[in-house]
């Protein structure tokens, strides 16, 4: 079997699975009864998005486009910390 074809098939499969995961996280983000649920959904969505970006980068054979993924994974961390601090203390900085 052609190795490139098999590789492409795996990539397609992964992309479809990730799109499905977006939908599931999206449902949680829409329905989530508390704000914490929404934030958790946003967090997971961001990390999934980062992985999806890397997959697309492999598919387009362009390493330049993969730099955004690392950044996105780091920024989601910051979003969580800010939300947590707001819930814990009511005041973000200080």
């Amino acid at each position, binding site marked *: 079997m052609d190795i490139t074809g098999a590789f492409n098939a795996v990539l397609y499969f992964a992309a479809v699975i990730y799109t499905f995961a977006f939908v599931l996280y999206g449902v949680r983000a829409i329905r989530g009864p508390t704000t914490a649920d929404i934030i958790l959904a946003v967090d997971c969505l961001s990390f999934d998005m980062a992985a999806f970006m890397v997959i697309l980068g492999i598919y387009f054979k362009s390493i*330049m486009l993969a730099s955004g993924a690392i950044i996105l994974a780091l920024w989601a961390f910051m979003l969580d910390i800010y939300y947590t601090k707001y819930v814990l203390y009511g005041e973000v900085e200080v």
Partner: protein
Amino acid sequence: MIASFFIFYITVTLFAIILLGIYGLVTRSNLIKKIIMLNIMGDGINMLLILIGYRFVFPVFPPIYEKHVTFEEFLARAVDPIPQAFVLTAVVIGMAMNILLISYAIQFYRLHGTVDARDIAEIMGGKSK
């Protein structure tokens, strides 16, 4: 054929997002909410500008010259760099505008205890509806 359908779908949805942003900006009365909607509108506009500069060819290149492609191929496949430069400026200016608007809102809340546009109209002597 199917490609042109998707192009039209994307463009129309982007316009819908822009109009939604304007609608929220007009009808919501909380100032912070207005700022959020303003940003959504700005995002839609930025995306539309980038889409106008996009090329519908398959291996599409970002406007960065890499050594392993020939110059002719690069010219044939790279997207238009001008909208990207515009949008880069717009994103940063948008953030500067956000800083200014949010500091206005916070200071107004400190002085008068409200960020609701209707209450602001009353405080400033106008008539609220």
